[in-house]
């Protein structure tokens, strides 16, 4: 390996290396735009470019299954989720001047320092290491599937449990927030005013669709009702 590494200098790149370098530049640039743009929706779209570029890099590294998973999950679902999140939080369309917090310069310092340290270490450690990409693809679907279901079955199943838990957790979080936020006290009087079916609401458990105002009126009416019951 070291012998082969000695044969390959940085000044005579192979075709794969050139392709990797170009796609890497695009990916890195898109990432930079993602974290610096003032338009929030654009940030999500530039993230698509970054993640797509990474998928290409996976392909270049012969990990094709991971590349497709990357496209499917990240580009297909995560970014869509993020866009939904932006919309639900009423993110401003267009340039927003306060996209960056006052912490920017500290963040820049930390990030540049970390980058310098990491790049220095990585280059120092792996400048002679050569990856031989010839031969059969090491990350084809068949190979990955075999490894996954032969050696990694138990973590795989555990992960499915984790995903289920995350699913339930996300539902619970959203649902509770919905119940609390959907009780406008302003229109409660309008809702309860002389509605004949109001006492029936006492028999229903307060769900998402039962406004608090209705039950408030039930409190007001219950003494008379108890009198009548006697």
């Amino acid at each position, binding site marked *: 390996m070291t012998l082969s590494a000695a044969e390959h200098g940085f000044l005579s790149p192979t075709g794969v290396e050139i392709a990797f370098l170009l796609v890497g530049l695009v990916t890195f640039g898109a990432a930079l735009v993602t974290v610096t743009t003032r338009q929030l929706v654009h940030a999500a779209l530039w993230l698509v470019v970054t993640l797509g570029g990474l998928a290409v890099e996976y392909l270049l590294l012969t990990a094709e299954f991971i590349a497709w998973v990357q496209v499917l999950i990240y580009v297909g679902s995560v970014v869509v989720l993020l866009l939904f999140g932006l919309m639900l939080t009423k993110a401003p369309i267009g340039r927003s001047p306060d996209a960056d*917090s006052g*912490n920017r310069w*500290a963040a820049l*310092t930390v990030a540049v320092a970390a980058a310098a*340290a990491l790049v220095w*270490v990585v280059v120092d450690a792996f400048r002679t290491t050569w990856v031989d990409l010839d031969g059969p693809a090491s990350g084809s679907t068949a190979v990955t599937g075999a490894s996954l279901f032969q050696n990694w079955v138990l973590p795989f199943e555990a992960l499915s449990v984790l995903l289920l838990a995350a699913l339930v957790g996300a539902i619970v979080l959203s649902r509770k927030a919905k119940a609390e936020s959907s009780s406008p006290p302003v229109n409660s009087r309008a809702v309860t005013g002389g509605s004949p079916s109001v006492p029936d609401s006492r028999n229903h458990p307060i769900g998402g669709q039962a406004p608090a105002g209705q039950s408030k009126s039930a409190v007001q009416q219950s003494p008379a009702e108890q009198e009548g019951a006697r």
Partner: protein
Amino acid sequence: MTTTTLAVLVPLLPFLGAVAGLLLGRTTPGFVRPLAVVPTLAALVLAVLVAADQGGGRAVDAATELTPTGSVPIELSLHLDGFAALVAVLVGVVATCVQIYSTGYLRDDPRYPSYAALVSLFTSAMLLVVYSGDLIVLLVGWEIMGICSYFLVGHYWETPEARAASIKAFLVTKLGDVPFLIGLFALATETGSFRITKVLGAVAHGGLGHPTVIALLLLAGVAGKSAQFPLHSWLPDAMAGPTPVSALIHAATMVAAGVYFVARLLPVFEASRAAMVVLAVMAAVTMLGSGLAALAQDDIKRVLAYSTIGQLGYMTGALAVGERGAAVFHLLTHGAFKALLFLAAGVVIHAAGTNSLAAMSRVSNLRDRVPDAFWTMTVALLALAAIPPFSGFFSKESVLGAAEHVVTGHTEHVPAASGWITLVAGLLTALLTAAYATRLWLLAFHGRGAEAPDHGRQPLTMTVVLWVLAVPSLALGGFTFRLLPDWFDGHDLTPTLTTSVVGTGLALAGVIVTYAAWRHTTALAARVPLGAVAAHPEGDAGLVEAEAIASHAPAYGGVAHAPDPADPGRLLLGPLHRHAAVGFHLDAVYATLFVRPVQAGASLVRFLDREVVETYVRGAGALPRLLGAAVRRAQTGNVQTYVSALLAGTVVLAVAVLLVATGA
């Protein structure tokens, strides 16, 4: 049972009675009175048996060492000689009388169970002191008496006088006990043992290096316990306690302990001529001062208290002339008649509803109301005044006779100076004693004015005890002065002719002068109405006495005296009366010498604590507070700032680790 077993049981029984009384007093009130009286009575019987066994012969010694205690061994030991046997009998008699009397005196007192238990404990401690052959064990009993006196003097703790008196009694006796303890340690270090027999053996062979220092240190404790000048001031104030407690403290326990202790260790004191002279001076000042002060007191119990101090002065004087037989003889007779005096005074206070002699002198017929107290008190006062043939005469003459022996040079190991001091002071005190005894008797029982109110007969338990004690007051001296030398050191205790004639003459002179003064002043009594009686005369004696004590200061302007021009003591003392009434300003001197400096020191310490120490504390707190304020500014609540700092630190650490790892 052997003599030793009996002797062990004597202090043990009242102790067990005290423990049982304290434990059962609240739950089973019916047992309290038997538990108070029976163990004390049993202890008396056993003490009599021990005395009969011992019989004045060779001293019985028994010792057991429980555990090794280092270089100087401490042993549980008994030393039973004639002194111990007879004093124990006296303690038993007086304690039994006091317990029986208390059942009537504190009939309705809610705190009677604890009171009776403490009296039993007191008795037990005194018996321990009497029988103990080891100085440390003796010290244990000595200190238990101190704490018991604190509790008992403060029995009426609702009144401020009682609270102050109990604290004063405790502090003053403790003031003496500190040098006493040091003296005991010095004595044991020099002689190599705490056993009294070994100590005395070492002293007899001249093994004592610093006899004067040790004797003076021990003397301080003795002065505190036995109320000798200058540590006597607690005793008159201790009259704020119930009368039976006064009887117990004054007659048989507490104050007797000091004299008894010196009697036991007399050779140690005799080794130092200076200590003997100091002892004589102390006795003389105590005798004369207390005699004068007793003449000026208005509270009947305070008169008796000062008379106790004076009689203790006689005993100390006897010791100062090296005649411990006379000292213990006087201790015995004095124990009998002083207990009788106090118990009778309790009856009188109950009947009169006041403890003020001025108020009693304005009431007629008091003696008809309490005939038992009148007759027994007359006997006891005659004994106190040393009129023959009452018991006090013989014991006092034995003291004066011993002093005369020294003066005439028959006793070579005692300095003649102490003989002279004791003799002169003793004779003068005989005059004063007769004077104040007469004054007390005349004012209390020969008042003129309104009829004394009739509260019915006194309880039988209180009057019978008086007659029991009247017998030794009357006859103890006359019948025993020939027998006692066998029990004691063998010195003759027969009164000598010269001192008898002079002493009795002086006593009679005191009686006559006082009577004349009383005849002269008693006409004034009707012109100055005076008096305050207890609010609840029908209550039990303890309640009446507590109210009388509490009302004395507001009614008469002081606990000690009353503005009564009809008082013969005022005429006799002249300008001295004002000073004698307050005990010659000794309390004021103490306040100036000790209390004020201590208070000034306390305020200085307070100032230092508040202003100096606390400044440092506050300064020490300021720096952390400043740092805290600085750190608080960093807590902005912005999570991104926190993470920035965290990651910056991580980068710095990682780079540092890398640099170290690569050796750069």
